[in-house]
């Protein structure tokens, strides 16, 4: 039995983290030089806070 099957809440957190990890670190780059400054650093920060908030919610639900 995998970790995922034993702990569904953990699996969801891992999946959410995986998703953001993929989006930020993998994928085609066409400009050759990704500048997050163009997209605004604050934007990334807000996105990651949203992610952490979601993971914390999952954890509370798992505990509750």
């Amino acid at each position: 039995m995998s970790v995922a099957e034993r702990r569904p809440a953990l699996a969801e957190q891992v999946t959410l983290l995986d998703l953001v990890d993929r989006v930020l670190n993998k994928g085609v780059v066409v400009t050759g030089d990704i500048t997050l400054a163009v997209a605004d650093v604050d934007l990334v920060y807000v996105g990651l806070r949203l992610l952490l908030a979601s993971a914390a919610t999952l954890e509370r639900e798992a505990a509750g």
Partner: protein
Amino acid sequence: MIHLYAFVRGLHDLEAGLEVRHVGNVAAVTGTNDPDPLQHGLVVESLLDRADAVLPVRFGERFETEDDLATAVSTRLEALERQLDHVAGCVEVGVRIVPRREPVDDDDGAAYMRARLIEQRAAEEVHRVLAAQARDSVQTSRDAGYLVARSDVGAFSSAVGRLVESHPALDVLCTGPWAPYSFAGAT
């Protein structure tokens, strides 16, 4: 601003707010909104059900005008078409191997090294078996991504299940199916 989400082939449906822009033979899914990384990722994943081939673009590709987008993409058309061919009909399955660390006497360096070696060999065997069932694979230290035909995902996850049974010393975490990020390298 134009935000670039992915390149696609065989797109048969598109959610509201997104647009397809063609550069040569390549179709780009774009939006004029300002997504955060999570939203970007969810849009790319949603394309998996709507297109035959999805080549995800890394978050942060934004262009002032359609001409800027076309200029950036046009120099990479050949590579993009090749990558779309490669991932057509496929999804990515992620496999993370986590050794189930048995306690080892801290002072016994040889025992520690033996334990690490056994884990490493088991992980290599898992990768070898799974890679043989995939169209392509990439492996980092503990994570591996496998490019699997949609119709083979069931068989692939059964194979993961069998490997979990036969390797009690490893926890194997299987994620996906994902858009094939690991097979959408910089062009």
